[in-house]
């Protein structure tokens, strides 16, 4: 049984790279696109199988526990739906000649490698390995962002690359510091980097080292999470890359970095003398939330708009985890899942919209519900969801975050609510312009892949009304782990 389940993890880790190699070899883009979908689907199946079968025992390098399995399943699922979306998206790009067949081979290969990097980051039990995986995922996305080879795309990629590299360096230093802290207690060698070992011994680690380490890790991985003021790469990377990549960035890559931050938060929380990580995270979360909320108002590019909304939501999530406690952690977890689903759905819609309208300028897109009801209403539902209106999932998490915070720390709830309202106003303002009003721009019919789009929205809607008890108990357990 264990062996079989270990195979599941192996599958998660092996399918993507092998598929990548295959796709790099295959010339025909239709085949590669299909292959991409199939590979992602298989990975997802493997991940889902982890839910039912019992898990592998934590090894020196790999680990599957309640916390990361949430991320893995979410990751592979969104990866799959995005691959479906990207198939139809890419076809259109090829027709318009923005991408060549060679680009596509590269694109699909990179897509799988990126999936590999993210999955690896999740299942790794070794903080060094996790670091490597996160950086791998980052570098691949850098290459994807620049794939259009336009001036803007290259610049966005470059910016992402430079800021990312600095983040990488900081994160690495943090990792080294953690090792240094662990080494006297655990002893030399790989064990001092194994997560499961660290968390048991953390209480005896040197608090001063842990503090410095956490600062570096928070900044290093926080750069990937896109927390203000480390967010600078995020909007442009979202705006200039292919839309499937924007969806993956917002939906998944941010979660990867967030996952890393969470792991180290636990480590710090386990050491009694070290500074409490909560306040730091709460501050960063609130800063990002309010900053992004203000930034939303002046956006003219629709993809950049939603990129900023991702920053805002990451802020909320980090705030929730920073607050801690069963309610807030549950809310943070739920919020993260809901945000991934909703935001990727929004980017699916936006991708098709930008393709059919031939522009990403908000000013040039009007009255979508008239010209393209399918996309327009999907966008409306998506934005309504992301703005935290019921009966959609994010409302539940925001309900829990805000109410529990106000009961515990009234003064923290005020800026939180302020930021939420601010962001709501901005998003709704843009939505009103884009989805309603006198139609503007091309009314050509679009061959969109509605399935991933609406399936995400359906999930979000269902979660807003009804959460299945197993899921709830599971999340509650994770929330308990997160302390």
């Amino acid at each position, binding site marked *: 049984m264990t062996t079989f389940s270990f195979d599941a993890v192996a599958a998660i880790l092996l399918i993507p790279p092998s598929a990548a190699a295959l796709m790099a070899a295959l010339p025909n883009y239709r085949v590669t696109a299909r292959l991409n979908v199939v590979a992602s689907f298989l990975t997802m199946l493997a991940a889902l199988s982890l839910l039912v079968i019992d898990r592998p025992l934590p090894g020196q390098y790999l680990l599957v526990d309640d916390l990361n399995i949430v991320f893995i399943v979410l990751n592979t699922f969104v990866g799959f739906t995005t691959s479906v979306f990207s198939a139809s998206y890419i076809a259109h790009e090829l027709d318009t000649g923005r991408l060549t067949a060679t680009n596509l081979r590269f694109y699909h290969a990179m897509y799988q490698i990126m999936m590999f990097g993210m999955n690896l980051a999740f299942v790794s039990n070794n903080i060094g390995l996790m670091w490597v995986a996160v950086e791998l995922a980052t570098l691949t996305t850098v290459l994807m962002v620049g794939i259009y080879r336009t001036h803007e795309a290259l610049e966005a990629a470059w910016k992402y690359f430079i800021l990312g590299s600095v983040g990488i360096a900081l994160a690495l230093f943090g990792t080294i510091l953690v090792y240094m802290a662990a080494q006297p207690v655990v002893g030399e060698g790989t064990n001092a980097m194994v997560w499961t070992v660290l968390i048991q011994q953390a209480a005896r680690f040197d608090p001063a080292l842990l503090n410095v380490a956490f600062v570096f890790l928070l900044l290093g991985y926080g750069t990937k999470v896109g927390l203000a003021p480390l967010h600078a790469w995020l909007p442009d990377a979202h705006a200039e890359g292919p839309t499937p990549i924007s969806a993956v960035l917002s939906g998944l890559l941010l979660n990867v970095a967030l996952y890393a931050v969470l792991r180290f938060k636990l480590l710090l929380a386990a050491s009694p003398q070290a500074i409490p990580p909560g306040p730091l995270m709460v501050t960063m979360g609130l800063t990002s939330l309010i900053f992004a909320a203000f930034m939303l108002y002046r956006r003219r590019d629709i993809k950049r708009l939603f990129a900023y909304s991702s920053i805002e939501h990451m802020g909320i999530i980090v705030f929730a985890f920073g607050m801690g406690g069963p309610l807030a952690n549950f809310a943070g977890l739920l919020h993260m899942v809901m945000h991934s689903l909703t935001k990727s759905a929004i980017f699916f819609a936006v991708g098709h919209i930008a393709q059919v309208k031939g522009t990403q300028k908000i000013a040039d897109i009007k009255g979508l519900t008239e010209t393209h009801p399918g996309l327009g209403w999907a966008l409306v539902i998506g934005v309504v969801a992301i703005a935290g209106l019921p009966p959609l999932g994010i409302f539940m998490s925001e*309900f829990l975050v805000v109410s529990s915070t106000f009961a515990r720390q009234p003064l923290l709830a005020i800026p939180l609510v302020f930021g939420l309202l601010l962001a709501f106003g901005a998003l709704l303002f843009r939505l009103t312009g884009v989805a309603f009003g006198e139609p503007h721009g091309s009314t050509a019919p679009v061959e969109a892949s509605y399935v991933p789009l609406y399936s995400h929205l359906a999930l979000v809607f269902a979660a807003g009304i009804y959460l299945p008890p197993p899921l709830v108990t599971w999340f*509650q357990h994770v929330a308990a782990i997160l302390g």
Partner: protein
Amino acid sequence: MTPIVALALWGVAALLGTAILAVAVSRRASATRLVYGATLGISAALFVIVASALAGDPAGVSAVTLPLGLPWIGAHFRLDALSSFFLVVVNLGGALASLYGLGYGRHETAPHRVLPFFPAFLAGMNLVVLADDAFMFLLSWEFMSLASWALVMAHHREQDNTQAGYIYLVMASFGTLALLLAFGLLAGPDGTYTFDAMRAAEPGRFVAATVLALMLLGAGSKAGLVPLHVWLPLAHPAAPSHVSALMSGVMTKVAIYGFIRVIFDLLSEPAWWSGVVVLFLGGLTAVLGILYALLEKDLKRLLAYSTIENIGVIFVSLGLALAFKANAMPSAAALALTAALFHVLNHSFFKSLLFFGAGAMLTATGERNMEKLGGLIHRMPLTSFVFLVGCVSISALPPFNGFVSEWLAFQAILQSPDLPQWGLKVMVPAVGGLLALSAALAAACFVKAFGIAFLGRPRSAAVELAHEVDRYSLAAMFTLAALCLLAGIMPGLVIDSLSPVTLSLIGNRMPVQMAQPWLSIVPIGESRSSYNGLLVFAFIAISASLAAFFIHRFASHALRRSPAWGCGFPDVTPAAQYTAVSFAQPIRRVFGTFAFRAREMVEMPPPGATSPARLTVEVHDVIWEIFYQPIAGAIEFATEKLNHLQFLTIRRYLTLVFLYLVTLLLVLALWP
């Protein structure tokens, strides 16, 4: 046997089903008939169910919990006297709006943007009243806002409507967040979100005060309490008229329900000053609302503003109830609360009626601007008759229903001398004066509304083509008119059916009224005060017909038509009539100068000069300028400044990261 609340929930489910069905069929020709027929049936059924609940076992409480909503709590639903009463209001309004919609909906240009959301809106309002835990309550509350927002956006090609929708939804979400905070306080850190738990909890003084403030923000913004009313006159008129009727007549009442539920039910013991706050806001809202209405020339906006006034009246009564409850004067509190609830019912009647009338006018003439109307009484006699009934009722004139609730409010105010606190002693009569003022102004306002739109001579060609509306609309309007009269001449019936509510919330009730001779109502004692709508109505009818009979029998009944006396001028143009603006001019001169900083400038050319004289009137929306423009300006400024961060160079971004890192390290270094 399934509990009544379960039946109600089935009805709600049916409504939601209708909404989904409507999405499917909305582009068919038969869709309108189908959807409105369905909603009519379902709402009527729901009305029967809850009315029977209220009549049958008023004290009875039926609750049910579904495995939905917040996982570890589930979705609690509960039907008690209070919710039954408000469900009666909701579903009666819903049924009649559907009936009206059967006719009105045929003129809808974009049915696919109305039909799916109308049942959803009804379902949302029902759910709010049924919900029994904070999560379900807020979910339904916001769902209701969302559905109505979609209905406001139905005619989204007009710039104004989209803007109205935007402001509406932002204000709604503001209110929801306020409610969220309030419930967060009530629930406490470990998140006991069920209303039962909140009832059981004993909140401290500070918590109670904060909750009151937040409820005033949350429910007040939904109900249209000044200064949170700005969205209302924009959003309500923008929707199709039967929806406007629902929003004004019913949705605001749902907001009132939320307020009562939390303040009277969940928070057990109010502080006396809470009465002062609510009274003050109510009085302010009443007067300002009706003054705004007087300046309006768009009929639907006028009606929306008058909704604000009525909300103010209701809140005044609620404030009285709070004050009396806080001072352990249950009978007086029961009287005040009854007045409030009675007015809730009445307003749902005549405001729906008036919006229906406005809608009929809109379909007949395509005009909302009264300055372009006039003389409709000749073209649409039936509509104008019922509209007149509505105007009389809303102007609080006997023998119609509006007067009864105002009368009860005054009777409650007359109990104020027994209040111990000086603040209340002095405040209540002043507020009573404001109430009377708003009533008189309301009469003026609706003289204007009816006189300009329906009387006089046609001011534009649009009226010439006007014709009576279809029979569904007329049926709906006549039903409401009849209800207005009935509630006016047999108020005892309503008061008695309200007693379970006051019993459950205050623990006391008004004396039984149906036992009184001649169906008169006696709130406290026969010798103190009494009113008998039936007899007043009968006397007026009898003596009027007697007079008419005698004169026609014994004196002349000859009659001759001739042109009106034009002061010597031959055939004066209709433009020479008084307009809405000129009608309001005296009142504007009296009240407007301080309420709106209204200015009149007259340019009179010198004698002999041929240039025309010009009168320019400038009116400021003071509330908007004081409260909202600064906020907008501040946000504008902040975004302007922060936006520079989008355009930094990579080196500067690196500098940001670097500085952040150094700051955090400094924090560490200085950490004890």
